[in-house]
């Protein structure tokens, strides 16, 4: 039986091996993905990101448990941890928090190291989610590393992005900075039993109100009076990221969170949202592949001697890196 057939039939070992090939960027992995691609597009991709130590793994564990118990869904989890920039090695410890899921045939947990290259990571993450999707998993949860560019990449990959916060990590200024909070479809305030949780929620709420002014309701003699709101905000299809408080070690707030995730999926499907995200994801993937192909082409076309010669000129400060590129591209640069 071919790898593709085995994976479509639910062979877990074949899937595990394919994931390794994808991660290693091996040609067999790419061939299998070509065959599997028509079988993708069914899974709900959920990204979970946030600072280190906010409890992402424990939250994913609880969420997956909930989906198994309440909805009987097949769940794949891709948990990413950092590689050492010096040795390339990694300790991948997310499974430690996910032991409750062990022994369940309908759960597949895969740990993955960042392996240094950011673009490459996004690409292999996308491809691994495709493999899970084709293998028939209803939900694919990607848990990112604690920090960095990949947080933003996850929003391009996932249908629904959860940003996990915890009390005591930052003030209102952190909340209005650009970046991670902007990508959230749902904000989770985990460790909700810790002191300061109200402040964290308040900071997030005020951040959201700046970004998405909600319909203002003024009270006049006890009667709610709707005020005029700017046109773009009366758009019923506007998704305002809800804030959900959780205590993932105890499972508090998890079923509410699952409801919000389901609501977000319904919201996306009711409008153009779902297909818009699919488009973005596939465009990002194609662009990344073009970059990689062009780079490979360049490596084939350029001899190492020529490259070293030009590099030496840059190193001696005879030419600038920009001029070096022009020389190496053989006038292909317009």
């Amino acid at each position, binding site marked *: 039986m071919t790898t593709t057939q085995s994976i479509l039939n639910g062979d877990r070992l074949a899937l595990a091996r394919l994931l390794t090939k994808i991660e290693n960027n091996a040609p067999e992995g790419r061939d299998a993905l070509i065959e599997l691609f028509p079988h993708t597009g069914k899974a709900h991709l959920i990204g979970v990101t946030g600072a280190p130590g906010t409890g992402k793994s424990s939250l994913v564990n609880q969420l997956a448990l909930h989906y198994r118990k309440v909805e009987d869904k097949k769940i794949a989890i891709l948990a990413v941890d950092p590689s050492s920039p010096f040795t390339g090695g990694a300790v991948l410890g997310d499974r430690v928090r996910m032991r409750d899921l062990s022994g369940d045939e309908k759960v597949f947990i895969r740990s993955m*190291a960042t392996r240094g290259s950011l673009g490459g990571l996004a690409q292999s993450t996308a491809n691994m989610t495709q493999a899970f999707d084709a293998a028939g998993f209803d939900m694919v949860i990607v848990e990112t590393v604690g920090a960095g560019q990949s947080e933003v990449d996850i929003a391009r990959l996932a249908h629904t992005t959860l940003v996990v916060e915890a009390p005591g990590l930052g003030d209102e200024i952190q909340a209005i900075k650009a970046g991670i909070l902007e990508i959230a479809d749902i904000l989770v305030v985990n460790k909700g039993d810790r002191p300061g949780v109200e402040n964290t929620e308040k900071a997030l709420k005020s951040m959201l109100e700046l970004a998405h002014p909600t319909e203002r309701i003024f009270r006049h003699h006890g009667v709610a009076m709707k005020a005029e709101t700017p046109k773009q905000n009366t758009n019923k299809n506007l998704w305002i990221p809800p804030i959900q408080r959780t205590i993932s070690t105890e499972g508090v707030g998890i079923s509410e969170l699952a409801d919000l995730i389901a609501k977000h999926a319904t919201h996306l499907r009711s409008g153009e949202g779902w297909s818009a995200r699919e488009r973005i994801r596939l465009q990002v993937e194609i662009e990344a592949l073009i970059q990689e192909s062009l780079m490979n082409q360049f490596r084939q076309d350029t001899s190492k001697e020529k490259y070293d010669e030009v590099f030496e000129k840059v190193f001696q400060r005879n030419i600038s890196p920009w001029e070096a590129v022009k020389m190496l591209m053989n006038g292909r640069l317009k």
Partner: protein
Amino acid sequence: MAEKKIRVLVAKPGLDGHDRGAKVVARALRDAGMEVIYTGLRQTPEMIAEAALQEDVDVVGLSVLSGAHMALAPRIMELLHANGQTHVKVFIGGIIPDEDLIRLKEMGVTGVYGPGASTDDIIRDIQETVTG
């Protein structure tokens, strides 16, 4: 650009709660450029075999200080084989009497390490068995 890394599952089967050794080894393997999946304490053989399958590892490293190695190791090997992971090499560290060491090796355990074993030796043995 194929990039192959040695993937190792480090697990503590059974009921003893001493994981310092497992953590030291995990860290040493990381520093040798391997990807170490650490599963934590009190794993059943089933949990370990399942994790080894999902993670498609080359090596399973077991840390056993409880004396139950003669029960746990064969069971884990059996499950790995049942899952089709016959190529996975099993290494054990812990308090292992000499007579058991021989029997474990006969069962197909690749390496056995007691107190005072050097992490350099473990790294070298893993690299040699996996990359050949």
